[in-house]
């Protein structure tokens, strides 16, 4: 949106102003219910028909002392009447429940943006905790002149709204966030029905809390309505999204749904072996809730047990899946080699986080790509695919199972913390929309001697599950004789098998879509080549750049190994290639080596996603050279 919208809004005429898109950042103490407030506003906006994108930003994994910077929890929401690809670079509105929240996030607020501050969070104690050492409140030292400041004593107003309630002050204060939510609903002219329904369900067990929360919510709304100070309301019309049925979805949730859908479409149960780790754990939590889909979740003693149990389950005819992040993925290398050697289906999900080592567990990064491609002993090629957004996780999980099962191979899925916790609207498919998956199961002996490693035209061996008479066989991690699978130390055979295993993976390129250009011409001066969660930021940057007349295009990869067959040819169409990645340059290495193109890295390793502004700046810098 254009800044002047909000600044216009500053002249005191009660008016209704229309905006294309708005970015709101809710920030407060971990205890302030920020995540709930944010997701409620998101759902309401989505249901209203806006396109949205959200980015929750939790404090680091250990609970930090109340009121401190380290304890600040944030939820950023970008919604609009236009297509939205990112949670927004800078915010139009910043809501802060205390001093620390302001200190931690003020830099994210646009000049002229609206700052809504809970004055109660700016007492001496809070100021000191936030590190305003001199104890002077920024609300009072006119340091905020560049913004439109709205001060509200939320605590006081909440308590007032609950004068008559029998709840203790502690309980009362817990509904502070509802006041803010109500106020914003007024400000953006929203209906509160969804949230009211949510409150009724959430507190079903205590009518008292239903009443209090509803009361405070309404109070917040009325506060905007009645108080003279607020003269402008804003309207963000529904977005012209493609026709269809929509819902909101988060990345990890979409992965879980994708796996279950693939299970249904292949007729095989999901076995999910996992050891908890941030930010992958939610996949386990989600899957564990769907046992009625015959999902088998196994919380293992460690990551090695998790993946090897999954291999055992695949041997038994389930779809073995395991997921982890950072250090947990590093532990799975040996077992991945075994899965390669066995040629058995397996899906390994890496929800990447900041590294190396324990690194930044709650932050996002893309630095595990080369590990996924090369991190095993011996020649052990594994397909690698990456998801580009929360909703894309569904497709990617489904696709990973398809490849694993139909090509009898472990498959790596790369997601990351940004996608895992982010949410966006999803035009969800019906089960009939989904193609079915065909496992190469062999379920009875066909007379002549059974050869467990005899390949079909795709180079794929049959999947024989214990229990079938006449097909008894042994598999293992030692090099095996072609076709029979018996142990073989023969030199020629080893070379043959290494080649057969590699060919099988390379041939997957025949069974995946050709690469398309996401934005821009097939031939242009500059190509932005990307993969994974950077999609949204680069897409919107590229859109604007093209609009502004730059000769730039965008190719975004889902399939990283093997590459789509036409990628090499596509690359020839561009004067230069830059590869923005949230690492020190990994995909760029693969592309340079594979196609000998002088692709250049654009690196950001800060535990944060790219903003589209950063991408634009890089491109413009390039054109200025």
């Amino acid at each position, binding site marked *: 949106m254009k800044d002047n919208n909000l600044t216009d809004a500053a002249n005191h005429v009660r008016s209704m102003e229309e905006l294309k898109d708005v970015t709101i950042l809710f920030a407060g103490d971990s205890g302030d219910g920020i995540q709930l407030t944010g997701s409620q506003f998101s759902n309401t906006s989505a249901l209203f028909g806006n396109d949205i994108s959200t980015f929750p930003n939790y404090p680091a994994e250990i609970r930090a002392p109340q009121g401190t910077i380290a304890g600040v929890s944030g939820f950023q929401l970008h919604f609009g009447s236009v297509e939205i690809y990112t949670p927004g670079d800078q915010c139009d509105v910043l809501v802060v429940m205390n001093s620390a929240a302001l200190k931690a996030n003020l830099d994210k607020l646009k000049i002229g943006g609206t700052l809504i501050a809970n004055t109660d969070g700016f007492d001496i104690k809070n100021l000191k905790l936030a590190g305003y050492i001199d104890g002077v409140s920024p609300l009072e030292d006119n340091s905020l002149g560049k913004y439109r400041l709205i001060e509200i004593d939320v605590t006081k107003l909440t308590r007032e709204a609950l004068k008559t309630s029998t709840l203790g002050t502690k309980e009362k204060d817990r509904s502070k966030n509802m006041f803010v939510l109500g106020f914003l609903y007024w400000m953006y002219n929203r209906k509160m029905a969804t949230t009211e329904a949510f409150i009724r369900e959430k507190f079903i067990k205590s009518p008292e809390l239903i009443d209090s929360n509803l009361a405070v919510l309404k109070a917040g709304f009325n506060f905007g309505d009645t108080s003279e100070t607020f003269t402008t309301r804003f309207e963000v019309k*529904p977005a012209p999204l493609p026709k269809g049925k*929509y*819902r909101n979805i988060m990345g990890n949730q979409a992965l879980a749904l994708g796996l279950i859908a693939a299970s*249904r479409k292949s007729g095989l149960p999901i076995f999910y*072996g996992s050891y908890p780790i941030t930010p992958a754990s939610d996949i386990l939590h989600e899957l564990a809730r769907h046992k009625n889909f015959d999902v088998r979740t*196994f919380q*293992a*003693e460690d990551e090695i047990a998790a993946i090897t149990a999954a291999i055992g389950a695949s041997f*038994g005819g389930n779809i073995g899946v395991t997921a982890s992040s950072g250090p947990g993925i590093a532990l799975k290398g040996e077992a991945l080699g075994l899965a390669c050697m066995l040629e058995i289906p397996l899906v390994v999900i890496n929800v990447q986080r900041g590294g190396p080592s324990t690194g930044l567990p709650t932050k996002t990064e893309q630095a595990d790509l080369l590990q996924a491609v090369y991190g095993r002993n011996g020649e052990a090629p594994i397909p690698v695919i990456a998801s580009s957004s929360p909703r894309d996780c569904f497709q990617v999980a489904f696709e990973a199972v398809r490849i694993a099962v139909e090509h009898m191979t472990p498959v790596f899925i790369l997601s990351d913390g940004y996608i895992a916790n982010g949410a966006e609207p999803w035009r969800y498919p019906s089960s009939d929309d989904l193609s079915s998956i065909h496992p190469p199961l062999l379920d009875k002996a066909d007379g002549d001697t059974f050869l467990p490693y005899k390949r079909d035209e795709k180079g794929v061996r049959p999947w024989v599950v*214990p229990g079938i008479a006449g097909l008894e066989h042994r598999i293992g991690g030692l090099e095996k004789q072609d076709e029979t699978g018996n142990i073989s130390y023969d030199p020629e055979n080893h070379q043959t098998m290494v080649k057969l295993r590699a060919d099988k993976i390379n041939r997957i390129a025949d069974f995946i879509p050709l690469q398309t250009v996401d934005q821009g011409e097939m031939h242009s001066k500059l190509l932005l080549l990307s993969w994974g969660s950077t999609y949204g930021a680069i897409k919107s940057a590229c859109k604007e750049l093209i609009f502004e007349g730059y000769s730039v295009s965008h190719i975004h990869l889902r399939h990283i190994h093997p590459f789509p067959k036409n990628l090499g040819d596509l690359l020839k169409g561009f004067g230069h290639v830059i590869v923005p990645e949230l690492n020190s340059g990994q995909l760029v290495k693969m592309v340079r080596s594979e196609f000998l193109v002088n692709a250049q890295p654009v690196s950001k390793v800060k535990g944060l996603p790219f903003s589209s502004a950063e991408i634009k700046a890089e491109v413009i810098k390039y054109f200025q050279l």
Partner: protein
Amino acid sequence: MSNTAALALTSKDFTSNQEVRWCPGCGDYSILKQVQTILPEIGLRREEIVFISGIGCSSRFPYYLNTYGMHSIHGRAPAIASGLKIANPALSIWVITGDGDALSIGGNHLIHLLRRNFDMNVLLFNNEIYGLTKGQYSPTSPEGKVTKSTPMGSIDHPFNPLALAAGANGTFIARTMDRDPKHLRDVLKEANDHKGTSLVEIYQNCNIFNDGAFEVFTDKSSKPNTAVFVEHGKPIIFGENNSKGLRLDGALPVITDLASGSFGPDDLWIHDKHDRFKANLLMRCFDTPKPDGSSLPRPFGVFYKESKSLYEQSLHEQIADSIKRKGAGDLDALLKGKNTWEIL
């Protein structure tokens, strides 16, 4: 899983076409033979049986049996078997592992398997050495053992594998030896009958890198005095023509000379495999006995047995429950979720 006693299978039916590749004289041969002997007797079809092993000489075992099998990676067989059992609880699963595979790199998976109590059998081939890697000491090698990696003798205090299993809440704990085929067969059958994780430690001679490690128990001359075979509900008797017995003085096992007549069988310790603490006393009889019978013998047999819910069963019960309560999963409902909106 068909339990029709006689499928008229013979040990031949369980022999694969792969040439057996252990050193001549290796104790593994005898164990293989006894397993191939009992398999036809436990009323299962070949296709219902899966052998999962790690890495080690012993772990080559699955290749020699004409059942389903996996020769996996070092130490991970218990975890692989767990996943397989969840995938198909009907299978009869046998984990084959060595003292290094099970107790060194695989120690964690083993103790977690034991506590979870999956219904499967674990055969731990204990030769007190790393055979496949050509003779380094293992977690069961006696202190002071001189090996390639310990030229001045090992300084590790070894594990007592059965005590460890008991500490991990194992529900079936037994010991037998390669050189006593009948006892080996009996213990294997009882292990197979147990519903839960059956841990069977098998003393196995590695005649190349640790020859004679168990000779004192297997050699005819010393065996009567050094090995005692316990049976549930029977007094604990051993020695040349059963001349000796064990008595419990509080928690102290004492050798009793039955010949002297001052004590009779009824004074003896009656083995009760359901008594955790007495089982523990047996497992702790672990000092190397003198051949002359002046010291406590090493016990063999089924020390402990307890029945406890099975992991795979509980897991599938939860699935059944959840289907009963929510109905079989409806994919469209799942994809739809709670809050949806339509754009027309």
